């Protein structure tokens, strides 16, 4: 019958397809290629818009800034990158003078005459930072230098009303004194200023390239960095190659004791160490995990729910994985998760109520359910690893104590939750956020408080917070730079929404101390004030603290020099691949 013939043909085609598919691609072992993965969409390659971790990491492969973090030093330390050395700072702490390295060239690109990249000069930084301040561009790192550099705010304000922004106008606080000398003048002391020069927002771009590509500049990255990306597309795979005109930069010798062997092994080697860099974008956990196990990715952070199969109860690596040459790295992250109160509501001005709710919250179980018991219970807002955190401090409102919670609730005037309205809890719309909300709801039900969980997209949640349409919400904060100021500002009154202080906590005593500390250089006195602030942030219970998370990373044996960090911009240039080992290990997978 005719139909059977058609059937046969289709079956044949289908089986051919399957057999074609069966020869999945073999890995190329002739050259050193890094296979990395990111868990979210990369937005584009314009430094001034790189406000999320993923985009800023990509930007930092191509672009460079004046400063960088020492790769092998902890606590985090700044080091010169495109600057010749750390800047000269004037006695009043307001003038910073940088010498720029000579002989640094932009990558070759058709935007330059003859397609040859020109030398980087001090004027490029003046241009790049003006771009960040350009009111027409709305750069996302503006908050970092807003109100800090003399004359820059005036320049921004002036041109926000006009059609064309004039970059040639000289700004008092931002000048190139000569070809290689750059001078910043601050309008007030800002001890965190240097950190901003290690953030991708302030990395050097070339005016010619920006003007040549116009609005498409974000897809044509041309920097001075170790890797070249010819064009950025939305492909789920970005392929970088080694920059052939990269200046001589050798593996850093500065190191903490724990990384001594890495420093020794690589001493004097030219960077970058690999020929090629492939960045894969995989948003779901399962494909990331499976691709890593197949050896298609060099390292991944462990998805929460693969944790049990990968890590043994005593934080070792499961045998099956260890046999394949896979190893495990655990490192603390500079962050804090919390549940915020809306302090604009009279209800939450009641400190006893806040304390009661904090005591009803079961942080231990939460840690177990959502972080596999790997996170550190947060006693206050500043995470371990930076000055201001008190390692031995135990908050009186941390451990779950239902009896005490109930009595505090009664003292607050709401015995057994009577008289309290149903409280809304807003959260982002990921599965884990929803489950955390449900967990919070259950905890509060134990002392008679009714909570309703509402899921939102991230912008919706932001909008609700800005418009004060929230009562309580679950959220986290990751460090922009390693300084307690970045965390304490979350509770600084004048920083209220739409600033970073979404809860609207406003305590005069706290505000005054914070203001004082924010003008101080890094000294023991400042640390003492930070600690005092941190203690207040715990006892006042302006928010209910969750945890400081830890990063669990698994890597294959062939990946060399991997060091876990909170500021991984630029990391790829230090990584290396052992091709012989890779060939051996791939056979075992």
């Amino acid at each position: 019958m005719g139909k059977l013939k058609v059937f046969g043909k289709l079956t044949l085609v289908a089986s051919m397809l399957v057999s074609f598919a069966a020869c999945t691609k073999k890995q190329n072992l002739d050259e050193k290629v890094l296979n990395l993965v990111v868990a979210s969409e990369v937005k584009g390659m314009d430094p001034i818009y790189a406000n999320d971790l993923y985009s800023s990491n990509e930007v930092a492969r191509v672009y460079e800034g004046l400063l960088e973090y020492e790769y092998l030093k902890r606590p985090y330390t700044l080091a010169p990158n495109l600057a010749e050395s750390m800047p000269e700072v004037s006695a009043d702490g307001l003038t910073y003078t940088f010498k720029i390295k000579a002989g640094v060239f932009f990558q070759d690109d058709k935007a330059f005459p003859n397609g040859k990249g020109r030398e980087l000069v001090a004027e490029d930084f003046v241009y790049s930072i003006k771009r960040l301040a350009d009111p027409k561009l709305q750069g996302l790192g503006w908050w970092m230098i807003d109100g800090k550099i003399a004359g820059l705010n005036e320049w921004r304000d002036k041109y926000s009303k006009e059609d064309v922004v004039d970059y040639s106008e000289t700004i008092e606080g931002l000048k190139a004194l000569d070809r290689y000398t750059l001078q910043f003048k601050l309008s007030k002391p800002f001890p965190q200023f240097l950190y901003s020069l290690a953030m991708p927002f302030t990395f050097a771009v070339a005016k010619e390239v920006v003007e040549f590509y116009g609005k498409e500049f974000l897809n044509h990255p041309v920097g001075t960095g170790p890797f070249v990306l010819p064009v950025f597309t939305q492909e789920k795979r970005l392929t970088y190659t080694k920059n052939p005109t990269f200046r001589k930069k050798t593996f850093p010798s500065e190191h903490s004791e724990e990384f001594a062997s890495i420093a020794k092994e690589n001493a004097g080697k030219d960077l970058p160490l690999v020929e090629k860099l492939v960045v894969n974008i995989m948003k779901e956990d399962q494909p990331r995990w499976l691709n890593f196990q197949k050896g298609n990715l060099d390292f991944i952070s462990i998805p929460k729910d693969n944790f049990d199969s990968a890590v043994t109860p005593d934080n070792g690596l499961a045998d099956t994985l260890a046999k394949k040459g896979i190893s495990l790295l655990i490192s603390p992250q500079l962050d804090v998760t919390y549940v915020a109160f809306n302090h604009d509501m009279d209800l939450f001005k009641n400190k006893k109520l806040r304390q009661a709710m904090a005591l009803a919250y079961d942080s231990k179980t939460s840690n177990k359910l959502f972080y596999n018991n790997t996170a550190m219970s947060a006693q206050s807002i500043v995470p371990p690893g930076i000055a201001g955190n008190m390692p031995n401090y135990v908050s009186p409102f941390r451990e779950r104590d239902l009896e005490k919670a109930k009595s505090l609730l009664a003292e607050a005037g709401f015995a057994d939750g009577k008289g309290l309205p149903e409280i809304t809890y807003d959260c982002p719309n990921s599965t884990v956020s929803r489950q955390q909300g449900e967990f919070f709801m259950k905890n509060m039900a134990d002392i008679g408080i009714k909570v309703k969980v509402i899921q939102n997209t991230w912008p919706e949640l932001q909008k609700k917070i800005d418009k004060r349409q929230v009562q309580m919400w679950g959220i986290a904060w990751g460090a922009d730079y390693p300084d307690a100021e970045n965390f304490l500002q979350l509770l600084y009154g004048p920083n209220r929404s739409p600033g970073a202080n979404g809860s609207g906590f406003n305590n005069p005593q706290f505000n005054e101390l914070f203001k004082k500390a924010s003008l101080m250089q890094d000294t023991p006195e400042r640390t003492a004030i930070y600690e005092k602030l941190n203690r207040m942030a715990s006892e006042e219970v302006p928010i209910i603290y969750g945890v400081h998370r830890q990063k669990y990373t698994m890597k294959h044996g062939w990946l060399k020099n991997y060091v876990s960090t909170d500021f991984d911009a630029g990391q790829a240039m230090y990584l290396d691949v052992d091709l012989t080992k890779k060939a051996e290990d791939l056979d075992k997978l």
Partner: protein
Amino acid sequence: MSVAVAEKLVSKESHSQSKSLWNHAWESLVSDKIALISMVIVSIYAIVAILTVTGVIAADWSQEVGASYEAPSAAHIFGTDIFGRSVLLKTIKGTEVAMSVGFVTAIVAVVIGVALGGVAGYFGGKVDDFIVWFYTMFSSIPNIMLLVAITFIMGRGLVAVYMALGLTTWVNLCRLIRAEVIRHKEREYVQAATAIGGGHSRKMIKHILPNVFHIVIIQFSLLFQTAIKSEVILSYLGLGVQGRPSWGTMIDDAKLELARGVWWQLAAASLAMFVVVLAFNLLGDALRDALDPKLKGKS
């Protein structure tokens, strides 16, 4: 054709659609074992849904009954979820959301779809143009976008889910009904009915509607199960039902749980969904066989 022939045709068609049709249908339904079982299953789900709404059963679904992620055992047939709640109770409680989403959505879609499709196909002309304009407008907006927009406006929750799914799914039915009505309008028996002077509503309801009704029945069963399944996608996007268990949120949980070997939540929700969807479809088929006038008395 001559009037005599037309009368014959009309009487033949009308006869087959007399009220005995429904008796016949009922008889053939109860004599069909699969249909009977399906009906029983659907009724059980409906009863379970009503009982959970009124709080008679599964009211204590939010109680912890064991440790986190306990595997299925005699005590907990489907194990426990991340908070140690009984997955079985959650599944039962989820019936409420599934049945109401399926039912309300399908009803909304059928009412709008049949009314507009029938009128458009039958009257043609300006009326048809207007209705086609209206549904083209709706159908050209992808469901997912309409859904996002509706949740922006209405907030999150069951009503938004009903509205979004109902307002997006009637169009297909409307289109099919319209096409069928156009086809039947040209058929001999309707033309014959016109020849002997039948009124519009009489022709539509007595002659055309029964001939397109099997489409409604099949579409109803499809809409019902599509709605139940769509709830899963909505939950994946975080746009679904909040604050109470639904099969969608349970399956969304499973996305993370499967890798650690926790399969029971997925299994329980999928099984519950599987059975009711299967029953609905088989029932739809049986209804079709029983109701379709053209099939009656054949095979």
